[in-house]
Structures are given as C-alpha cells and as structure tokens.
C-alpha cells in the first residue's frame, strides 16, 4: 500500500528516546543504509563469489524552506559547531501510528553539512546532510 509522505515527522534531540523538536519547512527527505561488502571468495572456491558485510552506516539528507527560529535547526547547528558537546539524535517517523518496530528509525548522528541558498525571486532554502555515529534502531 502506498503511504503519503507529508505525514512524515523528523525530530531532533540531544538524547535517545521518544520526543524531540520537529524540524519545520522540510519538503524533501531521504535516508540511506549503507554497508561495506567484503569479498570472501576463496581461491579454490566454486564458480561464484562469496561476500559478507563489513561496516555499516546510515545517512540522511533533507531540504526545504529555511526557518531561522526553528528549534531543530538550533540543535543541528550546535552539533555542527561543537559535536563533542552537543549530541544529536534524529528520530524519523515514516508511518506515524504504524506500531512498535514499524514506525521509523532513530540514530545518533553528526551534521555533515548545512547549506543555505537563496534565489532573488524565490525563497531562502536549506539543506542538511547527516551521517550516523551509532547503530540504527527501529521504533
């Protein structure tokens, strides 16, 4: 069944668990689970390669309209400026109300980039890139 995207909520906070500040103004979001794939094929093996997972991580990118007073922006900016003092957790509810384990993902992350752009006849827009520094949990 298809799921409408506009009900997605993207929350930011400084500790793990429920709650957080919903980021405002976003109209595009993507997340990606990435894993290194290690080739484990033996020299004297069969005709097919064998592989296994190496290290994995999780990345998030999102963009939308800039909102200067938004609390979530403050958390992201603080993390970018001083990540050792300002933890950042992202909790994304993809299907609100879907039930435990099916609703979304949470991860501790670092702000990799924070870009603001403006065209004179348009709006001030912002884009964020985040990368994980913990394992990903479902909720």
């Amino acid at each position, binding site marked *: 069944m298809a799921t409408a995207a506009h009900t*997605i909520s993207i929350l930011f906070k400084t500790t793990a668990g429920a709650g957080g500040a919903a*980021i*405002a103004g976003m109209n595009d979001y993507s997340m990606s689970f990435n894993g290194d794939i290690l080739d484990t094929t033996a020299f004297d093996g069969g005709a097919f390669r064998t592989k296994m997972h190496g290290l994995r991580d999780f990345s998030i990118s999102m963009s*939308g*309209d800039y909102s200067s007073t938004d609390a979530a922006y403050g958390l992201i900016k603080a993390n970018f400026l001083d990540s050792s003092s300002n933890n950042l957790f992202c909790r994304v509810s993809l299907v*609100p109300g879907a039930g435990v384990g099916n609703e979304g993902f949470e991860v501790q992350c670092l702000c990799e980039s924070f870009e603001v752009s403006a065209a004179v006849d348009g709006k001030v827009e912002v884009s964020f890139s985040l990368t994980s520094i913990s394992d990903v949990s479902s909720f």
Partner: protein
Amino acid sequence: MTPDLDLANHLQTAGLGTVATDIFAGPMKPPSAQISQACIFCISTGGLPPSPYLDASTSDYNVATVQVLVRGDVGAYATAQTKANTARAAIQRATVAGYVAVYVRESNPNFIGLDDTEHPMFTLNAEMQWKG
C-alpha cells in the same frame, strides 16, 4: 487567509483609496450612486496548488493569485494608468502581515480597453505567498 481582502487593505495603506469606498475585494461593480467610477477591485483568481511540508502539522506553502482591476473615470486614461502603476509599485515586494512574499506578475499594467460605459480599465496580477 483572504488574499483579495488583504491586498485591498494593503492598497488602502499605500494611499490608493479606501476599502469599501473605492477599493473592493470581490467582483467588479458597475458605477452607481454608491460606487465611484474610479475604483480598484481585488479579485481572487486561484493560484498554484499548495506544497505540503514533511510534518504532521499539515502546514503547506501556498501561492495565491489576485487580479487587481483599476477602473478610471471616463476619458481619464492617463490618470488611470498612473494609478495602476502606483498599485503595481505598491504590490511588488510588499510587506503584508502573514505573508512570506508578495510579487506582481507584470512590469507594466495591462490595458484591457474601455468598459461598456467607456471607463478605461487596467489589470495587474499579484502573487501572494504564505505558509499555513
């Protein structure tokens, strides 16, 4: 939001007339004992579809359009044109409470001819953007 009325109030603030006297939000009214010949009408003309944001609060970015029709006195083409240009300047980049941005879509008012009773008429199209 009521973009037509909000724009009419803005034009009043800009000194182009008085709402409900010679500036109206709504359809054009013919001149009469109660309605001046020289009037401005702000008419809702729809707009772009709302752009939803990714959140549970159902907020959207909206872009509405309002047509501003400037009617002049009979034989007063130049005066009506000046008034339409003043309205155009007042609309472009206007700061209107509750709106993110207000733009005019023409660099010069459209002269659409004389009405049935020979009043010169100009039109402008305003774009009013808000988040809500």
